[in-house]
């Protein structure tokens, strides 16, 4: 499922603090995550999300996120069908490039979403990654 399907209703919720992000990391539905982080983000072409087209091993899926949005302060990685859809939240200090590479687990074929907090708003880019073998319970 794509995040747009559950987006606009939450778009005006306030942006989260660390405690809310902890709650969002523990949340088990995409709707809860979106409510806790303050939205699903507006689609933006200024976020580059690199994720494989095909991940044979869902336990190790390389992900890269790079934001060209001015004032980027946070990068979220979300996979809606994972047991906990919010995977990670990276805080980007002022002198740090708004880009991060990491590796995540995916339970099944899904869109990976990068949600970027920039200028007090949330923005989003998504990419479909097909998963051959799930990496959350394997």
């Amino acid at each position, binding site marked *: 499922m794509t995040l747009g399907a559950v987006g606009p209703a939450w778009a005006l919720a306030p942006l989260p603090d*660390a405690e809310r*992000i*902890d709650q969002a*990391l*523990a949340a088990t539905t995409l709707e809860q995550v979106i409510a806790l982080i303050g939205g699903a983000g507006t689609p933006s072409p200024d976020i580059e999300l690199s994720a494989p087209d095909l991940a044979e091993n869902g*336990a*190790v*899926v390389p992900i890269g996120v790079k934001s060209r949005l001015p004032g980027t302060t946070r990068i979220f990685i979300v*996979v809606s069908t*994972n*047991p*906990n859809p*919010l*995977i*990670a*939240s*990276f*805080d*980007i*200090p002022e*002198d*740090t*490039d708004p*880009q*991060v*590479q*990491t*590796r*995540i*687990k*995916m339970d099944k074929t899904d869109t990976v979403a990068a949600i970027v907090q920039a200028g007090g708003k949330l923005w989003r880019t998504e990419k479909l990654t097909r998963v051959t073998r799930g*990496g*959350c*319970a*394997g």
Partner: protein
Amino acid sequence: MGAPMRIVATHEDGYTTVRLLVAHAMETGLRRHPQGYFIAAHFIQRITATCNGRTVLSAQWGSAVSQNPYVSFRFKGGAVGDRIVVSWVDNRKDSRTDEAIVAPSDDADVDE
């Protein structure tokens, strides 16, 4: 405590790049032991990197960051000889801190 992190930090053209390989099980709590029970969730929740005391990245994670997490990022400034310190805390309140010195860009690599 866990095993040491591998931290490689290099400086080039005004930027310092940090590559980080953390030794941690990152158990989701959803995997079954061969004897049938679930292996308890065990994962890093907070991780922070500083350069000479200045925070250059901090993150909050769930259990779906891969086992032995890898992260790379870069920041403006820093210099050869600066001290990069990385600390994490997991959901059992276990923690670990390791550090590395920023090197020139041509003599460092990280084995993933």
